[in-house]
Each structure stands twice: as C-alpha cells, then as structure tokens.
C-alpha cells in the first residue's frame, strides 16, 4: 500500500482541477469528485497505517526520491516522499478529518452559488496539506507550507463579498508570510552551511558539525518562526480568530484540526536540529500563547471565536510540549486535538446552521432541539477539558508531565508547568461555559430557538465519528511506542560545551518511553550549565538512566493528579457560575471592568499592531511615495528644466552673437544646443547629429 503513497496528495490535486474546470457542469456540482479523491486517500492512508502498525517498529522509515531541479549537477534539489510513524499517523489524521469535513460540507454548503468552487478549494487544501506531511526535505515542506497558506487564503475569503472576510484572508496570508520570512531565512542558513536540504542529510551535516552554536540556534528559531505563523503562536496569533470569517467546515478543517497543526508537525519533523536555547524559546512561546489565548476565550461571546482562541491555546500546549522535550506528548496532543476540535467546530457549524447566529448570548436551551449535536459537543468538550478517559486527558497530561519533569530538572523554568496547569483549569472553565450557555438554560432568543432543528445526517454522522474518536483508548499504548523522540543531531561535545543536551538524553530515547498511556517518559533537554564534556561510562550511564526514569515517573504522577484536580475545579466553577447561577458573571465582569475590557479587546494586539507595524509601514510607504514624486522625480525634472534653459540660452547666443563666419562649427552647436528644446516638438532628426558626434569622438580618440 505504501507504494501508492503519492496518490494520496495527487488525487485531490486532480479533483481540484476537475472541479475548477468543469465542476459546475457535473452532476451534484462535482462534490463527489473531491469527496471520492479524499476518500481513496483515506483508504490508502489507513492501509499505510495498517502496514506501519504491523511492523510496529519505532524506526520504521520509507523514503523515495526523484530529482526535481538540477543545475548541471552542481546543485540538485530532489523531491521525495518520507513516511515514518509520525507521517503515517498524520496521514490518517489529515485524511480522516478532511474526509469528514468534505462530507459535512455537502450539507452545510448546500445551495451556495459557488458550491463546486468550495469543493475545489477543499481539494487543493488537501493536496497541499498531504504534500506537506509527506515531504522529505526543508525545501519541499516550505513549498507546500506556502500552498496551504494559499488554500487558507482562498477559503477564508470564500465569501469575498463580505469585507470582513476579504480583510481576514489578506491578514492571514500576510501574517503567515511574516512567519515564513523567518522560515525562509532559517532554511537559507541551514542550506548555506550544510549544502543539503533533506531532513536526514541536514541532521547528518549537523552531526558532522557543519553548523553549530549560535548559528544553529538562529537557524532553528528561524524555522520555528514558520510554525509561529502557521500555528498561530504569539506574537503572530492575530490572524486565526479573524480566519473564522471563512465557512465553518473550513474553520474545522484548516483552522482547527490540520493546517494550524502544521507548525507543530514542522517542529516535530525537524526536532533534531533544535539547540537547548532554541527549545527554550519554543517552550516559552508556547506558554505565552496558551495563556493569553485562554484568557481571551474567557470573555469571548462568539461561539467560533471561543473555539478559535481555544485552538490557539491548545496549539500553545503542543508547542510548549515539544519545547520542553515532550516530543511524543506534543504530537499526541496534535492527534487527539484534531479529532475533538474538529468535532467542536463542526458542532458549532451545526448549531450556527440551526440558529443562524454565532453569538452564544442569543442561544441557550438547544439541548432539547439538537440532541446529537449536543451530546457529541459535550464529549469533545470533556476531551479538551482533560477529563480522564477522554483523549485530551491522555495527551495534555503527557505535556504537563513533560513540563513538570523539565521544571524539576531546571527549577528556574517551573513556570512552564505552573502556567500550563493553571491554564488547564481556565480551559475547562471556558469550555463548560460555552456548553452551558449554548445548550442549556433557558433559550435567550425565542425566535431563533423556535426555528432551530437537528442537522441532516450527512452533518451529524461526522460529528458522531469524531466524538467517538475523542476517547483515550484509541491512542494510549501504541502511540507512545511508535512515535518516539528522535535523537538530537547536535554533537555531544559541542552541545555540552554550550550547556546543552546531556549525552544520555541525546543518544538514547529514555527507557520509560515504551510504557504507553500516561507512563510515557521522555528525557527533557536540559539547560544545566555544567554537564560533563563526554559521555559517562556505561555503568554510571545505566544508573543515570534509571534515575531519569524515576524522575520522569514522579513528574508524570504529580502532573496527572494536579491536572485532574485543576480541571475539576474549572468545570465546577463553570457550573457554579453558569448552571446554578450562584455567582453572577455580570457582577464579576463589572467589578473588574478594566480586566474584562482588556480581555474583550483581546489584549489590544490588533490595535497595537495597527499603531506600530502596520501604521509604521503605511507611513513609511506614504513618505517614500512622496519622496519618489517630489525628490527623485523632482530632481530629474529639475535637470531637464535646466537643460531646456541652457538650450534656450545657447540658442539665443547662437542667433545673436555667433555669425556666419563660424557656420561649420555653429551648425553643430545649434544641433546640440537646440537638442533639448526641439525635443519638445517630437522631432527626432537630431539623433543623426549625435551619431555624427560619435564619429567625431572616434576621430578624436584616434588622434590622441
């Protein structure tokens, strides 16, 4: 099956062209073309996953290459497909969510005048995303990286008649470009120093010490900038909430489950290149993002915006998880999040479809009208809130465990764990606030409530499937075994010299990694300043490894208890406030008005950027425009004007002063003297004079 991997992206590409070209004239406007393409892709993905699962080998790898660009053998770029366990999992995740979203869209987009165009865009997205997943090099992932950006642009701006949508798609594209700028520079730095682009080749070059130290840190952070843009991390997170202007299935597919996770996937994919310093940057960016977005979600009242900020926040968890050394944890959360967040988004789509509003202040009591939507929504909410037994618990707990482990090894970074734990409580709170306000209580808008109804089967079937995937038993066990942290490519000696990854952690995956479930332990990159410069002898090594495992075990146990505790508190508080009404949220809001306003305005990020970067660029371009018109061009016109005056003077001089005695010379003078003046009339025969002048120059030069 794995031999057919290239069909997975290529079929949607074909579907894209078919639907763009003749979609409108096909029966059912061509939705089945896109649906079929991704369906076959899903089947192949599952087949590949089956093979990988049969092999059950943490080091499984399938790699094919073919040349793409070749500058006479001196510079060759190869395109290739790389499938390892992570890829196999991602393929299934992307294809599943994509297939279900296609299915959901058949109902949701029914009757839209650009129905077949919508499916074409979904297909081009699937193509780009799957290409991104299958890429084997920094170069090709960059290409597909930009292409998913394009699909995102097209889909956010799908209803381009709305100014908000048109603004949002441009914002998404440009903000992503800012991140990609860093990605590109990081890539260039890697390429300039190593001369290769394939992941494995680059890792090998790093092992050989072709790039190290600060430069390698910079390259890593550059690449990570791409992830900051695409995965909507602070400070480039501002595009994601606006992206909700796109149709809701798009929000589910691209801006929740798959594309935004591409940044996380990228960090996972190139994991061996990051230095400890780069990892710290990654971890803290994740922490800042997960906290800020969770606080904004607390005060948001638009159902999609709440989910959007929760997506930012969960992506922050993944990024932070990867940053603190929780490779398996971060990728596990990516996988589980894809299912439950897609379920939440499609659920919100089902709700919006029923009540035609996105404001939760106008909902309430929908439980009675749409039971399937409500139940699936609640299941997914339990998952995101981290309730044991659900998938989110499994993966988020691993992240918290990794963060605590990191914090125990490096006490100065314990904030990473504390912040993430606190935010886990916030997450549980705002998600249950959303559920209660939407589905329970009294309907706040009777007109909308009366018209509400359960969505058709092609919309609720995907919900049920996704809700089914939100239980933890699907993931525990095998995931931790198959997806294991790759060895860092940073050479031991140089890493230690930079206060970096200890030999044991760099060379071997931690032994506890095969335990599965919450027992997955990963050795964290350490920031301890004094590590031995060479690997310890074997005996000590064993002892240290068992010490590591013990520490990891302790960390994960504490993390589990505290996260369950905090989650329960959050849920309880949500019930206290919104179910029982013992605390009036309005009163709380008015008693700390500045904080509430601050959160309602999303920490004023948009305003800040408008005033600084955007305003600055605008002012600069206006200034440059003025400069160009008045200074550069003004200078040119001035020179021309002077030329005209001089010609005029010479003309007068010629007429009145020079007489016929010097006719031979005068002719030439008149010719050049009136050169500029006569130009104004459009005559060009003077041209001949200049050529004649050229001949004179030839003569003169020859003489001298």
């Amino acid at each position, binding site marked *: 099956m794995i031999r057919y991997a290239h069909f997975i992206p290529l079929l949607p590409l074909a579907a894209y062209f078919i639907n*763009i070209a003749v979609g409108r004239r096909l029966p059912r406007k061509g939705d089945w073309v896109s649906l079929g393409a991704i369906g076959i892709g899903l089947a192949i993905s599952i087949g590949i996953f089956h093979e990988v699962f049969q092999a059950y080998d943490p080091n499984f790898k399938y790699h094919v290459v073919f040349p793409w660009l*070749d500058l006479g053998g001196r510079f060759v770029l190869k395109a290739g497909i790389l499938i390892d366990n992570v890829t196999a999992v991602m393929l299934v995740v992307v294809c599943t969510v994509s297939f279900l979203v296609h299915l959901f869209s058949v109902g949701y987009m029914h009757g839209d005048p650009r129905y077949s165009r919508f499916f074409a865009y979904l297909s081009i997205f699937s193509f780009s995303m799957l290409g991104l997943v299958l890429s084997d090099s920094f170069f090709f992932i960059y290409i597909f990286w930009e292409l998913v950006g394009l699909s995102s642009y097209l889909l956010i701006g799908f209803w381009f008649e709305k100014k908000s949508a*048109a603004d949002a798609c441009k914002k998404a*594209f440009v903000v992503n*470009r800012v991140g990609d700028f860093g990605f590109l520079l990081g890539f*260039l730095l890697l390429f300039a120093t190593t001369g290769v682009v394939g992941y494995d080749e680059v890792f090998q070059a790093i092992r050989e010490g072709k790039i190290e130290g600060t430069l390698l840190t910079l390259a890593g952070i550059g690449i990570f900038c791409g992830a900051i843009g695409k995965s909507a991390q602070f400070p480039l997170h501002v595009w994601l909430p606006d992206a909700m202007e796109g149709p809701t299935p798009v929000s589910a597919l691209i801006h929740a489950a798959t594309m935004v996770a591409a940044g996380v996937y990228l960090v996972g994919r190139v994991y061996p290149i990051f230095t400890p310093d780069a990892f710290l940057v990654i971890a803290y960016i994740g922490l800042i993002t997960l906290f800020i977005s969770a606080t904004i979600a607390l005060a948001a009242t638009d159902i999609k915006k709440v989910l959007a900020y929760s997506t930012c926040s969960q992506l922050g968890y993944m990024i932070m998880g990867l940053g603190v050394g929780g490779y398996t944890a971060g990728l596990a959360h990516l996988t589980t999040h894809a299912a439950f967040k897609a379920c939440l988004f499609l659920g919100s789509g089902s709700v919006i479809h029923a009540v035609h509003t996105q404001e939760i202040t106008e909902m309430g009591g929908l439980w009675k009208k749409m039971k399937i939507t409500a139940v699936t929504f609640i299941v997914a909410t339990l998952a995101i809130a981290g309730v044991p037994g659900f998938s989110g618990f499994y993966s988020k707990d691993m992240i918290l465990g990794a963060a605590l482990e990191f914090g125990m090894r490096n006490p100065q970074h314990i904030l990473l764990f504390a912040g993430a734990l606190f935010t886990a409580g916030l997450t549980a709170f705002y998600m249950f606030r959303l559920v209660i306000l939407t589905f329970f209580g009294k309907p706040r808008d009777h007109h909308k409530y009366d018209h509400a109804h359960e969505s058709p089967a092609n919309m609720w079937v995907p919900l049920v499937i996704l809700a089914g995937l939100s239980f933890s038993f699907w993931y525990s066990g095998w995931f931790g075994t198959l997806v294991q942290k790759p060895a860092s490519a940073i050479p031991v000696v140089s890493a230690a010299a930079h206060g970096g990854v200890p030999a044991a952690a760099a060379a071997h995956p931690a032994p506890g990694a095969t335990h599965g479930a919450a027992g997955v332990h990963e050795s964290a990159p350490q920031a301890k300043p004094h590590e031995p410069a060479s690997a310890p002898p074997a005996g000590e090594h064993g002892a240290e490894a068992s010490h590591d495992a013990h520490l990891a075990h302790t960390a994960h146990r504490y993390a589990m208890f505290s996260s369950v505790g905090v989650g329960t508190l959050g849920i309880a508080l949500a019930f206290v406030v919104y179910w029982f009404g013992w605390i009036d949220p309005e009163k709380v809001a008015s008693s700390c008005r500045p904080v509430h306003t601050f959160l309602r305005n999303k920490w004023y990020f948009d305003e800040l950027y408008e005033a600084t970067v955007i305003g600055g660029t605008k002012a600069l*371009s206006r200034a440059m*425009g003025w400069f160009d018109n008045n200074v*550069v061009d003004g200078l040119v016109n001035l020179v021309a004007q002077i030329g005209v005056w001089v010609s005029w003077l010479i003309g007068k001089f010629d007429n009145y002063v020079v007489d016929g005695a010097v006719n031979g010379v005068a002719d030439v003078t008149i010719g050049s003297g009136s050169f500029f003046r006569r130009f104004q009339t459009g005559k060009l025969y003077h041209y001949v004079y200049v050529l004649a002048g050229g001949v004179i120059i030839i003569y003169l030069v020859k003489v001298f």
Partner: protein
Amino acid sequence: MTGIPAIIGSNLLTALIFLPLAGALLLIFLPKENPRLVKNVTFLVTLVEFLLSLPVVFGFDGSVAGMQFVEKIPWLPAYGISYHIGVDGISLWLLILTTFMMPITILSTYAAVEKNVKEFMIFMLLLEVGMVGVFLAIDLFLFYIFWELVLIPMYFLIGVWGGERRIYAAIKFFLYTFAGSVLMLVAILALYFYQHRATGVYSFDLLAMYDLNIPVKMQFWMFGAFFLAFAFKVPMFPFHTWLPDAHVEAPTSGSVILAAVLLKMGTYGFLRFAMPLFPVAAVDLTPAVATLAVIGIIYGALVSMVQKDIKKLVAYSSVSHLGFVMLGLFAMNTQGIEGGILQMVNHGISTGALFLIVGIIYERRHTRLIEEFGGLSKVVPLFAVCFMIVTLSSIGLPGMNGFVGEFLILLGSFKASRVLTVFAASGVILAAVYMLWMFQRVMFGKVTNEKNRHLPDMNARELAYMLPLLVLIFWIGVYPQTFLRKMDATVSAFVTRIEAKRQLALADKPAGETLLARYFDVGK
C-alpha cells in the same frame, strides 16, 4: 533540404531578425483603410516568428557553453565591424521571451488600438527587429545599432498612442535611455581603441574582447559607463522615475513589451557586457550594486503600496522585481545568476500578464484607478481567476514561476551576503501586502460602483492570449528544469571565467589592497 527552407535553416537567427522587418515592409503596401487586415498580417508575422524561434530551442545544446547558431559576415571590415550573431544559454530564453510575447501583445491590440493602426503595427514590428537583434548581436557595433533601434519605435508608441501626458513620458523615456546609451557608446569606443593598442587589430568582436585583460583602473571607468547605461534601462533605484511615467502613459501593448522585454535589455547588458568584460570592477563594485538592488526591492514595494493607479502600482512593482534580478546576477554564483535569468523571464511573463489584465479592465471602464473598482470577482469570474493566478505568480507563490526565480536568487545571494539577503527577503512580505491589498480592493467586497455591475467577462480573444501565459506560469513553477537545463553550461562557464580573469588581473596586485588605492591611487 533545398531552396528557401534550407537557407532559413542555415541562417535561422538572421531569419529571426529580418522576418519582422520584412513584415514591416509588407505592411507599408497594405491599404490603410483596412485595419483588420493590417492587424491580422502583423499577428501572422509575429506568430511565424515565434514558431521559427522554436527550432532554436530544440537545436540548442544545453551542455555547450559557447555561442551557437553563429553567423559571421564581415560588414565594414576596415573598421573591424561584422555582422556577427549567435545565441547562448544567457540569451536563449530572452530571445524566446521576445518572440513569445509579441503575438500575445499584438492580439491584445485588436480592440485597443484604433488610431493609425498601420503605423502602430509597423513600429511594433520594427521594435521586434531591434529586440531580437539586441539579444543576438555579439558584435558591439551591431549591438549598439539594435539597442538604439529599439528606442525609436518605443518613443513613438508612447508619444503617439499614449495617454494624456504621453509627450512628457516619451521624452523622459527617450532622454533617460539615450543619456545612458551615449555613455555606453563612449565606453564601447574606448574599448575598441584599447583593443587596437593591445592587439593591433581593430575589431568590435565581443568574443575577442572577452579575452582582453583590461587594466584595472580602466575597468572601473568603463564599468561605470556601462553600469549607468544599463541601470537606466533596468531601471535601478534611483534611476527609475521614467518607468512609472512611461508605463502609465504607454498603451497596454507598449507597457507589456516595455516590461517584458525592454527592461531585460538592461539586465541582459550586465550579464553580456558589463560583468564579463570588466570582472575586477564588477566584483569590487558588487556591494554597491547589490545594495542599490536591495534598496530597489524594498523601495519599489513601499512606493507600490500607496499608488492609486493600478498600472503605476505594477510599474513600481517592476522596480522591486528587477531589484531581485540584479541581486541574483551580482551574487556571481550559479544559483544567483540562473535564478536571475529565470526571473527575467518570469518577470516578463507575470508583469506582462499583469499589464494585459490592467488593459482588459481599462478597455471596459477607461479608468485604472483602484477606487473606481471593487467586487469585480462576482461580475467577471473568468477574469477573476486569471487575475488571481497572475497576482499570486507575481507574489512568488510556490508552484508558480516567480517562486523558483526568487528562491534561486535568494539562495545565491545568501552565499554572497547574508545581511543584504535578509533585507531582500523582506521584500517578499511587502509584495504580498501591496499585491493582495490591490487585489482585494479591485476584486473583493460588494460592487459599489454601478458602472461595474454589468462589465462583460473576458472574451475568446482575451482568453486566447492569456492562456499561454498562465500555462508558462505553472510550467516554470512546477518543472523549471526545462528552462534551467539550457543555461547550465553557459552560466557555469561564465562564473568560472569571471573568477579566472579576475585572478589574472589581480595577480600582480598586493594582497589586501583597498579599492581607493586600486582605482584612485589613494593611500599608496
């Protein structure tokens, strides 16, 4: 083969130069009253010209570095002037770009040009003679003749068929380019006499001049003269202000040819003359040239952003794009130069297409002000698709032509200067900003202007000339190998030769000599 096909076959390049001239002569005898016939004949001539240029591509051996299809006939032997033409990996695609863009451009004039059709078409064909000649000539005198020949028809195209301020724009265009040409002429003559002093032979043969070892100080001044001539033409910041005026006033077809081919004559000039003839000066002045290129990239993009006229916006974006080309060429390595050449072709296709796009809406609304539009996507869906593709290609989206060129350029220049490359790469962000913002204001939103509500979509003729451009946009983007393959040998020989000649010229110079000492004897 016998008869005419055989003659054409063995003198293919000559046929390419003189076919448009023959076409122009033929037009003289056509009746003025039948513009349709004149247009059809012109189109046919340019189409045959394009088809005739294809054998050059197929016959061109990409593994050979030197000139191919060479023809050399003594012309004025007393002065060492010969009719010497040929094509190599540097000029091949520019030649094809020229012959490819011509029929497209002619087709775009069918509805747009109504006044003095016959004269217009004669000028177009003369223009083609000049452009093809510029890219083929390897005799400096011959080159200069073609270089100047291009100037005259373009001057009239802008000055007669242009917009309101056409006279101002035409004169500005003419004076700027002409000022550069005169400087270049002086340098060519100096070179000519230097060659005589060094070898005892009078000759304008470029290939012979490549072998000269010109004294370093002399290189400086000659490079300076060539630099100005070509920098005016490219145009590089700060010599660019003729370009927006010329573009805005020129008729659509004039803008297309101006952007697609004429600007490339400047960048081509650097590759063909300024760099290989004066390698020491070229390398020494690289920091300055590359800095100007990067300023051009960012400056052009910023100024684009505030333009109200779509055509002016595209014109300034050209300044930005050609900054990339210059940066690539002066990276002086294979990636940079191949990227630069490819980007010349890309810019020709994408910006040419953008001007055609602007022309299409101008023909319908007789305005190019962005504020007059809005919401067109819904009214003219076909047009919207074409416009979107061309816009994205101009932004340099992967999968399309612009990306490959820009990417190779950045790879090349990163090796040469990291700092400059960082600044240059920021131009990629700015390009997205100004292009997408323009696209949004023209195409997205609701239709606010009643005049736009019932615009007709693209017709068959418009589609016919747009499609080949779109095909190439994707072709180069997806499989650039077709195009890069043919330039490999030439470019790598070029890079090697420059470095070798530079080493030779500096062999007896003290190491660590400052530039002031090298060129002005300061501090010696």
